[in-house]
């Protein structure tokens, strides 16, 4: 008797991606470059975040034909993004036999109050979070992987660091709380008490936590891995750089050997310019993707 779509099976794939790099790609050629470089998975999307930021307009799920082209081009897992709350897009993506769905703030939200009820799907979901409360709410909705959001499309790692520190710092603080304080934590975080209590017991989220949003260099990958991320997503940082194939491989090696500065130095040598990047303060509040999600 075999069972598909169980929580253990959905979460299991996230476990397999730990220590790796998941790369944003917009076509089959980029997907092949990513696989050649050692990506553990690719994220299929129509435009990388920095282009969405530049072009504006409503960003939606990708054309199924483009996703299928990427599935045919590589043997590693293929993920795809849907808009926050857009369960019909998620149904479409699941029907394409995609390996993971990212309910992503990089696309324009479809629902201003609700995220997708992810328990109703057999395909696993990853969701972004800027703080622990957001992470626990997504987990309570059935997310099997959390990624700290950062600020996608900026090439600036500062927001990723802020979100990672916020989530992991609060986890550390909760492990010191007594049982009465856990109720207060649940209230402050707006998260289920059961998950908060479990966290206090185990000292870790019940699902893997990866890092995304603004990573552009091998040293960025090493930084967030040392802070406690279990894997990294790199979007615009690779294919908006001067030499994507070399940079992609360098970031993979830096993620594996994040504790070894001499290897990070070696792979950082002669990479050519990273994407130019954006100072966060220059982005108006209402144009920051990280603030999307509830």
């Amino acid at each position, binding site marked *: 008797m075999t069972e598909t779509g169980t929580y*253990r099976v959905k979460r299991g794939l996230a*476990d397999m*991606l730990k*220590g*790796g790099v998941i790369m944003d790609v917009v076509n089959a050629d980029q997907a092949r470059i990513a696989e050649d470089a050692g990506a*553990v998975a690719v994220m299929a999307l129509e435009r990388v975040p920095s282009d969405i930021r530049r072009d504006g307009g409503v960003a939606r799920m990708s054309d199924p034909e483009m996703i299928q082209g990427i599935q045919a081009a590589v043997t590693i897992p293929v993920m795809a993004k849907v808009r926050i709350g857009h369960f019909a897009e998620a149904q479409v993506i699941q029907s394409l*036999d995609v*390996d993971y769905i990212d309910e992503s703030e990089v696309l324009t939200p479809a629902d201003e109050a609700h995220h997708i009820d992810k328990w109703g799907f057999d*395909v696993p979901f990853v969701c972004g979070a800027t703080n622990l409360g957001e992470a626990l709410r997504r987990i309570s909705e059935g997310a099997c992987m959390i990624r700290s959001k950062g600020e996608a499309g900026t090439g600036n790692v500062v927001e990723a660091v802020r979100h990672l520190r916020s989530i992991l710092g609060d986890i550390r603080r909760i492990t010191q709380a007594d049982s009465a304080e856990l109720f207060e934590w649940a209230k402050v975080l707006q998260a289920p008490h059961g998950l908060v209590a479990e966290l206090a017991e185990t000292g870790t989220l019940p699902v893997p936590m990866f890092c995304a949003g603004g990573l552009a260099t091998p040293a960025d990958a090493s930084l967030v891995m040392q802070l406690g991320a279990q894997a990294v997503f790199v979007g615009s940082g690779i294919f908006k750089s001067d030499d994507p194939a070399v940079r992609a491989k360098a970031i*993979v090696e830096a993620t594996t050997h994040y504790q070894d500065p001499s290897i990070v130095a070696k792979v950082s040598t002669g990479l050519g310019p990273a994407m130019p990047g954006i100072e966060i303060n220059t982005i108006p509040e209402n144009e920051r993707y990280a603030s999307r999600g509830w």
Partner: protein
Amino acid sequence: MCSGCKAQHENIEWSSNGSVTLRVRKPEHLSGIDAIVLPGGESTTMSMLLESSTLFDPIAGLLNEGLPAFGTCAGMILLSAKVLDGRSDQRNFDSIDVTVQRNGYGRQLASFEADLNVEGLDAPFRSVFIRAPKVVAVGADVEVLATVTAADGTEAPALCRNGPVMVSSFHPELTDDPRLHELWLAQ
């Protein structure tokens, strides 16, 4: 090892024999080890990192000398004699005479868990298959310790052993059941 489930393997209790585990990332980490686990992950990534970390040839040498090895999922692919649907530049150690098909059970939506009867264990073993490799042929000297019946009704070997080398299509590291690690080390 390079990617995937190394931590889960370490979390499995090795209480029965007091073993200590360490993570192999560089050739110098190989000195003095008595056995190696090649965990789950993406086999294409692991193969590339084994090369770039200059680990492939030293590990191949140790395996040839009889180093006990347990490969799960992607680790099974690496230890196999022949890999179908792999990348052309993907290398494998050829340590056990099995032929595997990558993602042979399908993509993530076809991933599954099941109770398997394992030769040498009294009770079934909960086995989690994630985009798992399918064993499509085994050599005469390979013992098949467990088989699985896939959704399409076909049966395939899921756990194989030849002397000190054991391989599984599934992930014993995703459950907290140490019996397969014990079975392997008892050999």
